[in-house]
């Protein structure tokens, strides 16, 4: 019976690193405040392991064999992948992995009827894991990381209801399969609205983003599941906004809890809406209520 001690949803736009210094002061402030708050809460929560759900940007698998979920089981997770390095413009990192938790995750999801792929070798990390890692210095903190790369863009991919169910299975797994006393944190990495590779590459859907952040903070998961459809996310930026499904996995795991957001920034050059949420789970065992 492990304990769920931390849960957050954060964006991973590479421009948050590479174009940060060129952004207006008020935009920089939102990014900085969000990171500071997230890191402070993380340090206070002292998780032993962070399970990070983040979409793969077609960096590990071909379209002809694209998994819904891919668990990184390596003892260390190094990145970014060579080709993504200049693009993100971020430093190298090597975060501690947790093979035992990764294996328990693979085993436990299999047992619960959820197909995941798993890989012992170092995965190719693009912005998905790299940006949160360097923004929060995860590799320098005393926490182990288990990345789960999620398909949110190669059709067909799991929708909000399926992702929520995966989160519910994860909660059960944390409670029943992971060792007593283990402190577990969850991060959903992705979003907010953006359309990478599309004709609306510079489009940010402020209305959607603010609505989504409010919804996340409200803890109303019935509305979340009814309204955060793939169609709605596609309308707010095709192929990119659906990265928020990684946040839905986390919300499925923690159940209906209020969250807090640290502001919202809209900056066209980032090519992505920026905002983060953390949820109050500290000290509570995973599950609804």
């Amino acid at each position, binding site marked *: 019976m492990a304990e769920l001690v931390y849960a957050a949803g954060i964006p991973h736009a590479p421009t948050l690193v590479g174009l940060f210094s060129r952004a207006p002061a008020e935009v920089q402030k939102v990014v900085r405040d969000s990171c500071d708050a997230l890191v402070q809460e993380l340090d206070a929560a002292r998780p032993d392991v962070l399970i990070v759900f983040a979409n793969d940007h077609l960096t590990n698998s071909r379209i002809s064999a694209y998994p819904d979920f891919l668990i990184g089981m390596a003892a260390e997770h190094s990145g970014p992948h060579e080709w993504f390095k200049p693009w993100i413009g971020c430093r190298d990192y090597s975060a501690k992995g947790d093979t035992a938790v990764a294996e328990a995750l693979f085993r436990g999801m299999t047992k619960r009827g959820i197909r995941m792929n798993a890989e012992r070798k170092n995965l190719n990390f693009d912005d998905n894991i790299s940006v949160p890692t360097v923004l929060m210095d995860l590799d320098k903190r005393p926490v182990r990381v288990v990345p789960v790369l999620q398909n949110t863009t190669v059709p067909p991919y799991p929708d909000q209801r399926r992702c929520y169910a995966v989160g519910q299975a994860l909660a059960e797994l944390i409670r029943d399969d992971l060792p007593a006393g283990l402190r577990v944190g969850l991060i959903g990495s992705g979003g907010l609205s953006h359309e990478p*590779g599309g004709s609306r590459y510079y489009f940010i859907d402020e209305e959607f983003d603010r609505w989504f952040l409010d919804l996340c903070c409200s803890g109303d998961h019935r509305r979340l599941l009814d309204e955060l459809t793939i169609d709605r996310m596609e309308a707010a930026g095709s192929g990119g906004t659906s990265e928020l499904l990684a946040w839905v996995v986390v919300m499925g795991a923690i159940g209906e809890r209020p969250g807090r957001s640290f502001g919202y920034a809209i900056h066209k*050059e980032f090519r992505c809406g920026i905002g983060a949420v953390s949820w109050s789970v500290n000290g509570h065992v995973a599950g609804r209520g």
Partner: protein
Amino acid sequence: MGLFDNFDPTLAAHDLVQDLKWDPELRQQFEKDEGSVLDRYALRPAERQAIEQRDFRKLYDLGFHPYLGGQLARLIYGNDVDGAIRAVNKLVSSLTGKS
């Protein structure tokens, strides 16, 4: 909306972009002699022509995955922070028909 309406997972150009990302040598060859790299893939005539003409609109209409489209643009126009801006602008103007 609609970016995935024509999505065709069988396009060989998807594998081309994947391999270019994963293989620095292939990337070098692509820069030096693009045709010799394209020759290795079972691209349909329209698919190959769209790549040669940097016609992303046509490529997407054939069913190309837009995320790989963004990456292909970076492979062609530049992959560092500033190269990416160039790539995004080229991509958007090809898709919208505006420049």
